[in-house]
């Protein structure tokens, strides 16, 4: 008796073999397997004529530059789809306010937000941008795997013409703009065409609980060694020195970044972080930095369960009085300020010697970009102009954020925000704001750094192996440049 399954097997095998053989002649991307009428009309590059010739340059597939319109009222009825990650306390309120104000000023332009968390946005944005009708405005991480890849695929619009029309070059210092610049083939990061504008400044540092610091007889440290010594003191006196929730993988990057800033020369970190050749992850300084993190874990400095802990939940716990220090970015300031008020303080990671320039991860929030597929780039650019205007900076300051512009002028005089503003200014003006390490290569963040840091902290990898793995990815990428 022939069973159902052997019959099914035969049919399946025959079918699959036929599919494989019959179709092997036609190549994906050659356009013969898709509707030909739709393969040439998109400007976002996903259907760029393939053939390996120079026509692959995405810049060529963009429509010829049109006259730029900066008058919102004359744009007619327009709907803009906006993908953002402004969902935390502070971020959410500034953004809601600005969107409402924009709508009030330009009733003909409707903003439809799709808001997601940082990691959900990172997971889904690449897919969204491949659509023939992508969102109009997106918050794209500066990283090579994000903005770099999107630029390479021709999915983001060259903003230089708008920059000229709106005078963004005068509004923003070049140190800020360069983090959103790529060559039009996406290969060179840090110079070239402008693809986005950030709203908010960011500095990764140390939040601390003032009451606890006083109880422990400690003061804000002036040197890195002093900081490490205060962690020891906290541990000895039965406190949890450091709070971390790393289930998402990226939060530990913001612990390692400042440590690295204390050990490794800033020029080297910049090369490593931007994925440009000339540096090495296996230098004694980098190994020293990784060892410090691993020692902190071994010494029990972190809260119990930090590997499976949720980032925002742990920040909330810290705000509610657990732990002495929290190494995190300024973006959690609003949550901490709301719960702790004047009881919270912030300092940038102290340098090796007192008074030396400070070096830490930071810069700007995820820039807002316009997609090449947007039907209304003028309106999209107008919106970006609006949310980065002088007035917007005031809204940002009022709602518990660190505006990227007019920072000194808008600085609050009390509370944790006063510290954050001051430290941001100090590091920007006198020290080094270092790139986020996951910017480096397309695979660096997701495949090497984030799991690597978890491996390191869980003792699954040695310090040396951790650095070697990072070096392999970095070296492979830079060698191909």
């Amino acid at each position, binding site marked *: 008796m022939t069973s*159902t399954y052997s*019959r*099914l097997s035969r*049919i*399946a095998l025959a*079918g699959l073999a036929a599919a494989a053989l019959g179709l092997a002649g036609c190549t*994906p991307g050659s356009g013969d*397997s*898709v*509707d030909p009428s*739709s*393969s040439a009309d998109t400007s976002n590059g*996903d*259907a760029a004529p393939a053939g390996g010739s120079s026509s692959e340059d995405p810049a060529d597939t963009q429509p010829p530059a049109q006259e730029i319109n900066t008058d919102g009222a004359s744009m007619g009825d327009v709907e803009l*789809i906006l*993908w953002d990650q402004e*969902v935390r306390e502070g971020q959410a309120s500034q953004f809601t306010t600005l969107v409402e104000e924009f709508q009030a000023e330009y009733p003909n332009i409707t903003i439809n937000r*799709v*808001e*997601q*968390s940082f*990691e*959900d946005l990172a997971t*889904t944005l690449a*897919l*969204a941008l*491949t*659509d*023939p*009708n*992508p*969102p109009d405005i997106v918050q794209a991480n500066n990283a090579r795997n994000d903005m770099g890849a999107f630029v390479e695929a021709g999915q983001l619009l060259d903003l230089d013409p708008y920059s000229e029309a709106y005078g963004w070059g005068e509004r923003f210092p070049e140190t800020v703009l360069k983090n959103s610049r790529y060559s039009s083939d996406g290969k060179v990061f840090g110079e070239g065409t402008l693809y986005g504008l950030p709203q908010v400044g960011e500095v990764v540092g140390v939040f601390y609980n003032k009451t606890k610091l006083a109880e422990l007889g400690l003061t804000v440290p002036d040197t890195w060694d002093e900081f490490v010594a205060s962690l020891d003191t906290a541990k000895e006196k039965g406190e949890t020195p450091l709070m971390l929730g790393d289930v998402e993988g990226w939060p530990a990057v913001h612990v390692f970044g400042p440590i690295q800033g204390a050990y490794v020369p800033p020029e080297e970190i910049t090369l490593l972080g931007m994925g440009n050749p000339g540096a090495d992850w296996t230098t004694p300084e980098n190994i020293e930095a990784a060892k410090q993190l691993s020692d902190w874990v071994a010494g029990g400095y972190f809260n119990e369960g930090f590997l499976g802990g*949720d*980032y*925002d*939940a742990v920040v*909330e716990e810290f705000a*509610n009085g657990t732990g002495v220090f929290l190494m995190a970015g300024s973006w959690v300031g609003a949550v901490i300020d709301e719960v702790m008020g004047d009881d919270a303080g912030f300092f940038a990671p102290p340098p090796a010697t007192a008074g030396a320039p400070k070096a830490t991860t930071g810069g700007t929030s995820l820039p807002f970009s316009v997609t090449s597929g947007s039907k209304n780039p003028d309106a999209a650019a107008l919106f970006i102009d609006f949310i980065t205007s002088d007035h917007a900076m005031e809204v940002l300051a009022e709602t518990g954020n660190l505006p990227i512009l007019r920072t000194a002028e808008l600085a609050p005089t009390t509370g944790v925000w006063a510290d954050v503003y001051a430290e941001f200014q100090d590091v920007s003006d006198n020290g080094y704001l270092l790139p986020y390490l996951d910017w480096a290569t397309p695979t660096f963040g997701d495949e090497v750094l984030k799991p690597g840091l978890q491996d390191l902290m869980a003792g699954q990898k040695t310090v040396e192996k951790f650095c070697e793995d990072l070096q392999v990815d970095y070296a492979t990428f830079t060698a191909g440049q």
Partner: protein
Amino acid sequence: MISRFERTVNYAILLVFAALVLMPLASIVAGAIAAPSAGATGGIHLENFPAAWTQARFGRYMTNSFLVTGTVLAISVVVSTLAGFALGTMTFRGSGLLFYLFLLGIMVPAEAIVIPLFFDLRALGLTDTLLGVALPQIAQSTAFGTYWMRTYFRASNRSISEAARIDGAGTIRTLWSIQLPVARPALVTLVVLLFMWTWNEFLIPLIMSPTGKMRTVPLGLAFFQGQHTVDHTLMAAAAVMVALPVVVVYLFLQRHFIRGMLEGAVRE
């Protein structure tokens, strides 16, 4: 002889087992009606539901979910009933091959077909549309539905339709006015199963709605979770709302769910 002791043990097992099943669900329902933050007072807080509904933009996601589920059900139930009727009651060349082809589809996971489907449907401009999200699920549902209805028609009393045919009723009329009323239980089972699978589907709407326009409510919950990890009450309330439609249908038609899941697989 079954002793009183054995009977007691049985009840104990059943109760422990039921408690283990219900506890995680109870925890989420409890979370959904708990006080929103530490400062608030206890008691039942039903206001979490409208709050979560607005913040998670469930209005849009629920609409999408009902549209997608409705479309998948309407099309796949009709076409699989027709195909199942033919395969179950008629003899024709190629019927065997056709049947096995449909069987194959029951085993193919969405993971295998979504990648090519995504690129093809995008080329046709169908991603982010109702059809783009529904069509792959219609194909999956049709595979199962055809198998299910064929099995039913083969087992059903053939003399009814034969009598009808002798009376001169056409094929479609036979199906519509004589077979279908009798087939109602099988159809209801098919409908509830497809409803559940489509409502709960995650991967297909995630990929087929890249810009999020046609995201269904399970995706809404996933992305809401990313933003509101701190606010457990709102997340729990949102989770309850995602599960509720299927659970309500299940409570009323649970026999159909259980029978469908078991008999879709077993037929002695």
